[in-house]
């Protein structure tokens, strides 16, 4: 029959029983609001962990010289000199899965500027390093290929270093600081990254061309490590394999030999942490989902009582010409209206609660758009599913008995 008429009839019936309609809705409201809030909290913690990992560079791969036996004595990794500049060059030239490669050499010591000094380490890196570690130069500029070839005594300093050496609010760019008596000209200041999840200050860094550190500070020809970034996080595994095979070939290792280097990626960490948060999200969503089902049962319960209570009304409607399908539709529309309206209020309440949690408890939250659509869809289905039985019961009433029902 006429859909809009049935809609009006259903709306009118709900309006006649505002308080009951609201109580029925309450179950759905709470159900949806909790689904949204729980998902927002779950997704929020997942996002925050992911962003911490990706700040470290989620597709970063570290290559360190590996342990090796020398005459039965295991050697410390830092003493090893297995990684050479040739390895760096072959990775740059041969590796298909890498977006960037940078050698790594470092030395610790005291930095001095004027009357101030600060202990830290100076790291010699290549041009790709900033990209790999997701660092940006806030003030000044980075060193160039020319600086690397010339072993120029230039450096980029982190925020912590800048704050401790340049206490008078001077602009560090262009000034010369000394590291173990070697003067370095500051050409840029890095944008602050704060502390990482392990509590390390990521701003206490000084970067310089690796050639400068090799020749002028350490006087070595090997490199202490390599930092690489895979093209995407998913390609990390392929990149790791490729690096291993290139380096084994370079180092002329036989099949039986152990690697004399160590390739590590952040992927294991990332996978482990996201699977934990995924589990938490699923758990939270399950709890919230149960409350949604309870809300649905509430709808069924009230609708069922309502059908019994309105038996005479149903009988009358049938006697003036409502068909079974009209009655069925009316009650289904009522159930769906309750659940959808409850759903809308629930979504608003859920989003509100999520932000409340964010501001009051400072938990990270993230509202996935799909979680809103999901709970909305689930609501509608809940309405139809739980409204069906009472509606069917109403439609199957015998008009003769219904009209005289006491």
């Amino acid at each position, binding site marked *: 029959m006429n859909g809009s008429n049935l809609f009006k009839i259903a709306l009118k019936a709900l309006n006649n029983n505002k308080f009951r309609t609201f109580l029925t809705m309450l179950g759905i409201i709470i159900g949806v609001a909790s689904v949204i809030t729980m998902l927002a909290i779950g997704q929020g913690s997942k996002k925050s962990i992911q962003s911490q990992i990706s700040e470290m560079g989620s597709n970063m791969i570290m290559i360190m010289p590996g342990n090796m036996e020398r005459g039965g004595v295991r050697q410390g990794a830092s003493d090893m000199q297995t990684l050479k500049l040739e390895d760096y060059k072959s990775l740059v030239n041969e590796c298909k899965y890498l977006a960037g490669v940078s050698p790594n050499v470092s030395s610790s010591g005291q930095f001095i500027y004027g009357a101030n000094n600060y202990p830290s380490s100076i790291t010699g890196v290549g041009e790709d390093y900033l990209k790999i570690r997701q660092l940006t130069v806030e003030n000044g500029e980075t060193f160039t290929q020319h600086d690397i070839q010339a072993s120029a005594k230039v450096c980029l300093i982190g925020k912590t270093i800048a704050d401790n050496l340049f206490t008078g609010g001077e602009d560090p760019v262009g000034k010369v600081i000394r590291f173990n008596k070697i003067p370095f000209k500051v050409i840029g200041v890095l944008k602050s990254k704060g502390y990482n999840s392990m509590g390390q200050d990521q701003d206490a860094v000084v970067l310089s061309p690796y050639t400068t550190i090799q020749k002028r500070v350490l006087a070595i020809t090997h490199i202490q490590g390599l930092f690489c970034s895979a093209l995407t996080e998913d390609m990390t595994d392929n990149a790791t394999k490729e690096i291993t095979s290139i380096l084994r070939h370079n180092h002329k290792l036989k099949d039986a030999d152990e690697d004399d280097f160590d390739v590590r990626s952040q992927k294991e960490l990332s996978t482990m942490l996201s699977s934990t948060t995924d589990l938490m999200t699923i758990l939270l969503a399950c709890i919230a989902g149960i409350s949604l089902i309870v809300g649905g049962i509430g709808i069924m319960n009230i609708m069922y009582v309502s059908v019994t209570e309105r038996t005479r009304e149903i*009988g009358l409607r049938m006697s003036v*010409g409502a*068909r079974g399908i009209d009655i069925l539709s009316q009650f289904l529309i009522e159930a769906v209206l309750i659940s959808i309206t409850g759903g809308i209020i629930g979504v608003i309440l859920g989003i509100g609660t999520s932000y409340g949690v964010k501001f009051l408890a400072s938990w990270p939250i993230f509202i996935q758009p799909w979680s809103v659509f999901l709970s909305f869809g689930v609501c509608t289905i809940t309405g139809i599913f739980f409204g069906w039985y009472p509606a069917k019961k109403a439609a199957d009433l015998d008009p003769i008995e219904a009209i005289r029902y006491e």
Partner: protein
Amino acid sequence: MNKEPIIELNNIKRKFIVGEETVHALRGVSFSIYEGEFVTIMGTSGSGKSTLLNLLGCLDTPTSGEYLLDGVKVREMEKAERAVLRNRKIGFVFQSYNLLPKTTAIENVELPLMYNPGISAAKRREKAIQALIKVGLGDRLQHKSNQMSGGQMQRVAIARALVNDPVIILADEATGNLDTRTSFEILVLFQELHKAGRTIIFVTHNPEIAQFCSRNIILRDGHVVEDRVNEKVLSAKEALDALPIEKE
């Protein structure tokens, strides 16, 4: 008077199976009702008049026999088809009014038209107002059902029965819940509708009402035992005017 009958019953039988017993509610009822008649169907309880009313109202179908309503064979119709037939051709008036609670007079009257998709909202409202004016409630359109007296509620119910221009109005003990004076007022209304050309069937167990109708059918044990035309129809209006004296 039109020669085509509005209602034609031909040897209608209706039996119910209750447990192991078979109850014969109607054992072969035949009569025709023509346009413009005002018929009472009377009988004691158990005479089969309720069953007959349900059949006439297309709420039920006979076990055997033929029922033609305005030329349409009802017996073979599906439930949903009968619902549509009721919607277009029949107006019901019940003993207990059966108005929708918390709903205005006008919305109650509009109800049958809500189930007729051919009628627009504006047309529906207009027809409902016309029907309410006809029953003398032109000034109470927006009153809710719980703000009205029994007589007023029954008038709303009559307006609801009129609103779809039915071929027949079926009244089931329509004065049963009302006091004497209000009952007469309602009877006056029915007589006015009858004069205006409506066909009305009034089912009752109250023999008094028969005097005001044009034809009386009496049922007993599932048979028609009497079917006579009332030559001397009393005016309900006069009876109403004479009422204070009757009361003493």
